[in-house]
């Protein structure tokens, strides 16, 4: 991507992210959302993070799936998941993830 392309991309990113941010504050006011829409919004975060995690850990059809016991991304994700579920702390999750990934790479491959 060229320098100009990246600037255009940043502008596009601003637009697609600002819509979700401004809609409730400036347009919707204090009117409640339709029930189904608010229920859908409740499940969007968990679905999006689940999808992102699976794709980053197991790869995709294009680059080849990584379903194996020697998949370092998968093995390192296990302690992260445990720590994240127990502490709900972003910093701890990242530290454990980096440590596990680094150690596994040192001793497995």
């Amino acid at each position, binding site marked *: *991507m060229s320098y100009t392309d990246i600037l255009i991309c940043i502008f596009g990113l601003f637009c697609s*992210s600002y819509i979700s941010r401004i809609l409730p504050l400036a347009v919707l006011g204090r009117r409640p959302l339709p029930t189904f829409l608010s229920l859908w919004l409740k499940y*969007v975060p968990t679905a999006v993070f*689940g*999808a992102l*995690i699976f794709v980053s850990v197991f790869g995709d*059809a294009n680059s080849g799936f990584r379903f194996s016991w020697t998949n370092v991304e998968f093995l390192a994700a296990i302690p992260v998941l445990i720590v994240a579920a127990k502490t709900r702390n972003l910093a701890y999750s990242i530290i*454990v993830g980096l440590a596990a990934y680094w150690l596994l790479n040192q001793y497995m491959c």
Partner: protein
Amino acid sequence: MGEYFNKQVFKAVWPICFGYIPLGVACGILGEKVGMDAFLMAMMSIFLFAGSGQFIALAMIGAGTAIIPIVITVGIVNLRHMLYGLILNQYISKESLLYRMIYAQEIVDETFAVNSIEFQKRESGWNPKKAAGLNFLAHMSWMLATVAGVLLGSAVYIDTGLVSYALIAMFIGLWSFHFKSAKLVGIGVLGGGLALLLSLWLDNMLNVVVATVVAAIIGAVIDNGEGVEKK
């Protein structure tokens, strides 16, 4: 200025700033690897301002993805900010339109979490001005950390695999915030499975977008009166 920046505001904002340093530096290092300079990184941090969104956008730029799929994917990932706006509305809906337009840009997981907790404590005397001060300080520290990451990335060698693993660990951490019911966890796993399956036909992260939309619809259908969560 004391109305916006005072001891109470600093006390509330410092954990956010502290967390932003490693995350922002990692984001800047990734940015440097995919061809961002300090100016572009500062622009991205000002106008996008989203930790996971910026990591995803940078990873996609690095993979040579076209602009439109990047913009759509990050837009979907940031849909959750709409929830935060709906909840914050009760505290700031009486402020001017300009205030609300600026506040909107400052909605991220961290500022939402801290501001909504402070607003809820009646005795704390938290108000829209203090919230604006907190938002500004958090946003500035994020921007500075990402720019520092770009400068650091160009000065020293850092393993790319490690930086991208920081992203995966962050996703898992962010996902864990939603482990509030079996259905919420289940829909996340379903979204993951669908994203893998759909990658047979869709690429450019569109598999992630479609999997998210479909899994969340299934979630809404099976929710069965659990209701919208009150944060």
